């Protein structure tokens, strides 16, 4: 403590992030719990993620299995599948998104209130999967809405979904509530709603939202030229 008194300027009221875990543990053993609003807020949010109750294909069966007693998604506080987008925090896009279904999925996303998160579950939701070269399947839901967690698999096992959920919890816990790096839902400039594609004569219009998604550069372009 004598070392602390020799510091030149008095430190501001310490936020929880400024003391080490060992010091916090020492205080906790003396019955003093130190935390910050940010930590408390994120702790609460990350442990009560309510998913939207909707499934699109076979991945939905695995999602249902994750909710049953064997895998028990309730251990992570995400067992309350809400039938209304107004009450949901998380959209698990579980399965093939057909082009006919895509506008409805985007509309559901727009109807969810912030803060909201999106998990693309399975190969189809990520990229179109085995149906990518078909005429009627959207080549990844990230063409229209921002995706936080991608879970590969065809379909992914319930454990994979739980792992994705844990990663989402870590992402939520790392979010800031103030400053330039504040979470998306706390910034006024970050969009919450995204344009819903319309049915065209040959494809949905537009076929992707360039504000959200752009095709990646082709590293094999020179090899394709021959």
């Amino acid at each position, binding site marked *: 403590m004598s070392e602390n008194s020799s510091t030149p300027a008095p430190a501001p009221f310490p936020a929880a992030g400024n003391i080490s875990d060992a010091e916090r543990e020492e205080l906790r053993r003396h019955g003093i719990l130190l935390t910050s609003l940010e930590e408390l807020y994120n702790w609460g949010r990350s442990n009560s993620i309510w998913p939207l109750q909707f499934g699109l294909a076979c991945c939905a069966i695995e999602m249902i299995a994750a909710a049953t007693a064997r895998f028990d998604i309730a251990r992570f506080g995400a067992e309350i599948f809400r039938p209304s987008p107004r009450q949901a925090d998380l959209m698990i896009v579980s399965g093939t998104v057909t082009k006919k279904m895509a506008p409805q999925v985007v509309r559901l996303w727009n109807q969810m209130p912030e803060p909201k998160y999106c998990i693309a579950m399975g190969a189809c939701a990520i990229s179109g999967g085995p149906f990518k070269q078909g*005429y009627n399947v959207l*080549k990844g839901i990230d063409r229209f809405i921002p995706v936080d967690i991608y879970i590969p698999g065809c379909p992914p096992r319930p454990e994979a979904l739980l792992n994705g959920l844990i990663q989402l919890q870590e992402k939520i816990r790392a979010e800031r509530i103030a400053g330039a790096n504040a979470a998306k839902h706390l910034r006024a400039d970050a969009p919450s709603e995204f344009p819903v594609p319309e049915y065209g*004569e040959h494809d949905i219009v537009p*076929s992707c939202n360039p504000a959200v998604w752009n095709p990646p*550069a*082709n590293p094999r*372009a020179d090899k394709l030229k021959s």
Partner: protein
Amino acid sequence: MSDAPNSEKAVAVVPTSLSVTDATQVLARLQARFPDAKISLVQNPGPAAEHSLLLDSTFAREIAFFLRDDPELQLDYCSNVSGVDWPDKEIVETKKISVPDPAGGPDKIVEEKTKRFEPGYLEAVYHLFSMAKKHGPVVIRLRTGNRSDQVTLPSLTPVWRSCDFQEREIFDLYGIKFEGHPDLRRLLMWPEFKDHPMRKDYVAPDDFEWEPTPHDQVLARAKARIAANDAASGANVQPEAKS
């Protein structure tokens, strides 16, 4: 039993009588009942030998009602309706003609090739079974005039209720218009959609991004797009540096 093998063999080679649902039997029945209709047998050369009947589309509805209500056939269940697209094709026929040798030698065999244009058409194939008689299938086909403007066929939904969605799907994916269908709308694609994706000449919208292993049509399109990008930029600039 072992003392008379020859007589047993003789019994075995006697052909069993054809069942009532055999295509030739049904054809004979239909020709007796509908002498004006043009009905022909379409042979299936495969081992299944499931021959089918090509019906005259003007009589198709009457024939279908007959097949359903005939006491011998009672084909009361249509299990499956399929669409088939037969595109226009050019057939090269090779004929071998023997030409007498003027020098007096043996005849020369010359191949003569003739080209024949066969216009395409669309087909609807119905697989019929009888729940009452426990027999089937009887396969009937309907053929359109061409692939562009004469694409109307009589709907068989008034005969078999189970054709409803399947005819809608054929209308959606192949573009056959079923006359007399109670609710002819697209089944899978949205109403604004204009194409017929299961036709052989359908080109899917090009909304692919880079793929690790492009092949077939995707590879051809990727090459075309790279060439177009190069032409648009006007320079021979590589998008990515070579590693």
